[in-house]
């Protein structure tokens, strides 16, 4: 799935503001899900947006950033419109993002965002 392309870019992203960690729970030891750890200070977020205004990323921005910067192939498997493709579950700090405003959720420092795709095993 799309996430395969992502796990391949862990090294490349290591020095940037977002670290991608392959999810390290034993149950999800493969490309099925991936975890985005956000740890940049707000100051650095300014550099990212470059507009000089204090701006915190929301999920919409994060998803489009992932699409632009991390997905190398077949982005349609991850993104649909502004949001993730239906069927991909999103957890923000171990909570369903549907409780937190989905795309409007504003990211906090040290948030852990997890995308779980609901693939068919068979």
């Amino acid at each position, binding site marked *: 799935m799309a996430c395969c392309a992502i796990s391949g870019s862990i090294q490349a992203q290591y020095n940037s503001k977002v670290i991608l960690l392959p999810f390290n729970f034993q149950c999800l030891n493969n490309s099925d899900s991936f975890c985005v750890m956000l740890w940049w200070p707000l100051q650095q977020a300014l550099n990212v947006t470059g507009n000089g205004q204090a701006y915190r990323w929301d999920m919409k921005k994060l998803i489009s950033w992932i699409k632009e910067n991390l997905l190398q192939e077949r982005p349609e498997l991850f993104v649909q419109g502004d949001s993730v493709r239906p069927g991909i579950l999103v957890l923000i700090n*171990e*909570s*369903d993002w549907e409780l937190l405003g989905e795309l409007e959720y504003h990211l906090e420092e040290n948030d852990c965002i997890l995308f779980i795709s609901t693939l068919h*095993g068979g």
Partner: protein
Amino acid sequence: MPVTCTNDCNRRAKLKRPKTAEKLCLECFYQAFEDEIHRTIVNNKLFQPGESVAVGASGGKDSTVLAYVLKLLNERHNYGINLVLLSVDEGITGYRDDSLETVKRNQQQYQLPLKIVSYEELYGWTMDAIVQKIGMKNNCTFCGVFRRQALDRGAMLVKADKIVTGHNADDVAETVLMNVLRGDIARLRRCTAIMTGTEGALPRCKPFKYTYEKEIVMYAYFKKLDYFSTECVYSPNAYRGYARAYLKDLESIRPSSIVDIIHSGERMSIKKEVKMPEQGTCSKCGYISSQSICKACVMLESLNRGLPKLAIGKTHKAKVVTICSNAFQRIIYRFKIFHELERDEIKFV
């Protein structure tokens, strides 16, 4: 802004149930999830005490959660059933071999007996070998037909009375959609049944018929269950993929769509006058079949004769071709006109 659990337990809500839109904490979610499956089992009288039940275990999320929940409920509510894990090894390198490792770990974790039956021992062909023969297209047809039978045969080997599979509400709704689109009335009627094959073959049931995929994945994630989730290395069933994407789009607009579609499927009835294909048994292997020879035997024979293309597509077409080719064969032998025919045609026969 933390949301509190709708159940007034004062704990923090962790997820929204798609079916009811309740916001639940983990404890309340586990309880609701397990109770719902328990109610499905009891209301539909899926199990009788003393029965031996084979859990179709692929190592994927659905079957892993199924094995875990059934073991839990069996102990909690004293169903008095004996659970056995049953896996089918299709012989797909890089996919099934890895997922079987997961099943073997589950066997240890849940302390359940495990039986693995392989295509190779049942049919003499692994999927890898079949794909080599027929290419990347249409191989899911072979795999699906063989797997269905393999599960039954495996279940008989372990002397199970019943097979349970991890088909969830999303799967059932997809199948309803596909059968409507294909106009397959016979399957449409069967696909919503929670238990099938009560006459003759081993009964199969789907305790997750009303359980949303989202909840299964959440349950597996929060319980940290050990499951395997890679797509099969051979191209996935394209048609189902479209039905699935459509269903997921519907779900994102209105989460109840999934149970609504299942409900519609259940409510569709067929006039008594309509002649339905009768289910008999295969004259070759004795397995349940709507034709005189079951699909698996047709496919197997075509593989062994080196004509796998024949087995795909409508059965009557295959039959017509077989009949024609037999006639050709006789003519060829009778008039000894080998030299007048193209080599290919002879091979085709």
